[in-house]
């Protein structure tokens, strides 16, 4: 009986290990590590994460731990959770945009006097604040499957208010502004352009969308499946389709202008000194010509460093009539989201 009990006890650590309660003791000397929260598509098959990790690890002689926290919209929630728990599992975050930067600024560590190499080479329109490292940028726009419009002989929408016309009914896919950065940008664009009429626009739009989905991935997937003819995405999505020899997808710019998204990275508050050195090295790596050249074909966004060569497929991408920077305070964003929730539900 005693032996049985002892045997049972001896397998307990193994079971605990299998179920993830304990971690194995490291046997080799531990390299310094930089822990980065990022979004899942960055680590996806065609994401830039797979290329960045080994390259940076060679450079820094450290471990780069890219931790996926779900889609980009879930990064802020993760930061809030960490704060509530009083524990942080990462040193920096990669994949926030300028809106998330404003919303979550209390989580980020200022740069102080430090400035990354190549920072002065960043396109002025892609700069946000010191502390936020721009990494790539893109202009939000509708993408249309032109075959549908030709077949039905329907004009392509040219301004926001066109979207409420009956011939676009159930042909539009949007992202939920409460969970998605593109969705939030579309919502704020309507407030920026239409002002007090924005609520009326959304009341009409409510009957127009086929679906309003939690993230860009899902929305674009539904669009590609052919169920919808219009999706809210980026002008550079057109470049991706051109590179795949698909000429029936076209980016549409609004007469009123289109919002820009600047995607970047920021150090998290309380980052240890050793990790901060690695983080600074990582930021400079992100601005290096090698990484910036990869941004266009892995992220399908524009590189932030001036004069980075663009692939041929970018040549037909339309320019926005007016680039809109959505500079909103936390309170303004919350108010817009509450108004959206009231109308949508």
């Amino acid at each position: 009986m005693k032996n049985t009990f002892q045997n049972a006890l001896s397998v307990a650590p193994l079971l605990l290990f299998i179920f993830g309660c304990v971690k194995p003791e490291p046997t080799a000397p531990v390299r310094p590590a930089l822990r980065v929260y990022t979004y899942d598509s960055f680590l996806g098959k065609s994401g830039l994460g797979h290329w960045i990790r080994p390259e940076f690890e060679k450079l820094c002689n450290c471990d780069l731990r890219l931790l996926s926290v779900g889609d980009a919209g879930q990064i802020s929630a993760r930061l809030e959770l960490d704060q509530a728990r009083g524990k942080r599992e990462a040193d920096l975050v990669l994949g926030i945009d300028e809106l998330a930067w404003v919303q979550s600024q209390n989580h980020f560590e200022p740069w102080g006097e430090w400035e990354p190499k190549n920072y002065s080479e960043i396109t002025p329109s892609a700069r946000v604040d010191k502390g936020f490292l721009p990494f790539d940028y893109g202009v939000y726009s509708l993408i249309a499957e032109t075959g549908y419009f030709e077949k039905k002989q329907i004009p392509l929408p040219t301004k926001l208010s066109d979207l409420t016309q009956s011939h676009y009914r159930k042909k539009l896919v949007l992202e939920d502004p409460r969970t998605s950065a593109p969705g939030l940008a579309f919502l704020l664009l309507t407030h920026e352009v239409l002002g007090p009429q924005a609520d009326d626009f959304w009341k009409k739009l409510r009957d127009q969308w086929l679906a309003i989905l939690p993230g860009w991935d899902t929305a674009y997937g539904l669009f590609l499946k052919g169920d919808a003819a219009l999706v809210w995405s980026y002008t550079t999505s057109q470049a991706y389709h051109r590179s795949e020899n698909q000429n029936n997808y076209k980016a549409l710019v609004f007469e009123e202008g289109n919002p820009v998204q600047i995607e970047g990275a920021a150090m998290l508050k309380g980052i240890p000194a050793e990790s901060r050195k690695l983080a600074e090295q990582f930021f400079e790596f992100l601005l290096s010509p090698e990484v910036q050249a990869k941004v266009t074909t892995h992220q399908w966004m524009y590189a932030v460093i001036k004069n980075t060569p663009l692939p041929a497929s970018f040549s037909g991408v339309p320019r926005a009539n007016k680039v809109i920077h959505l500079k909103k305070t936390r309170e303004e964003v919350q108010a817009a989201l509450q108004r959206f929730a009231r109308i949508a539900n």
Partner: protein
Amino acid sequence: MSGAIYTTLWIALMSPALAVALGWPLGLALARVIRRHRFIRVSLMVPLILSPVVTAYGWQRFFSEFGVSYGLPLVMVVSALASAPWVILQTAFSPVSTAALQVAQTLGARSSQRFSLILVPLSIRSMASAGLQASLWCLCSFTIVVALGGGPPVETLEVLIYQKLRSQWDPATAAVAAGLQLLLGVGATLAIGRFQATAVADTENVARANDFSEIVLALTVVGFFWIPVLSVSFSALSPELLAEASGPFLRSLVCAFVVAALSVMTALVIPRGLNRGWGLLTGLSPIAAGLLLWLVLGRIWDPFEGSLVPVILIQWAILGGIAARAVSDLRDSQPYDQVAAARTLGAKPGQVFRILEWPRMRAGILSSAGLVLAYALTDVSVSRVIGSTERPLFGSYLMDLAGQYRIDQAVALGSVGSLVGIVTLALGGRSR
């Protein structure tokens, strides 16, 4: 939140009503065949233990052929179709006396009289019980709403809790929504207990069902409810995909086996009164339970680190109720005389169980373990609310695939996952 409450209640009322409207007459019509033929019973159980990803996208594909797109009507109809086989089975085992109907017919009662004076009064309790169980199922349904709702305005309390936790970080609102969800769930479970009718489990009193037309009708009904399964394209299962899915699948399989074993063992060991009480926990929403764990343990435990322990705990608490109910019935019918005699003669408890109890309980235990295993393996809710995105569980992985519109692959993998539960259930033998 009022929109989410309204939508939740609307789905939890209308879908069960549809399920009962469809399932009750079919259950009555097919009662003899279902009671007599194990194959039909198990075939009707299959849609109930399918991965919710297969159910949602399988039916969506079917309805898209008729031009039905995302929205509340699709969610309601698919929820009804997903729970209708349960209503059919419940009705088929309801204590409706075919003898009484035959006597009434012989005595000249018209069909309307037989319907209103015998059929309805005798089956009203089982109808209410089946409807409430379908309602409970709809209350806790997460995948169908997320997959087919098309976003706002189709937002239920489950979806709201998930969003407030994972995307918007508003635990206070999530907790209020979870409280409401728990109240609704426990209320429905208590009501089910009140209406639960004694099932007709024996097949001896059932007239021999050799009527060819009844069997054809039963097979047609089975075929209809198998539409999501029939939509599976196994050609989507490439070796690369199977390799990619093996990690999430194995993690969930380990969880599911542990949950099934724990559930059955606990149900066998704990006092009978507790077994009955445990059945109440089946009314808990997995997402609300996940939130509870977040709030209680969040400071010391990272909900996203990928540990299987919290997943097992939640699934054990909720799904264990299924085993508890089944095993509780079996323990109630224990042959005390034999057990007492064996003990008096010096048999050890292990021997009593192995020789007397196991042969009698094997079918019920395997069936309930199969059910628990199937639900745990393909569960989406728990894996979404506390799972790791780096080391996802199977249900969460399937939802990610579907989110990337690799729906054929998600559905094919989901049906492979469901096979494990189906095989265990089929091995379970003659239980309901």
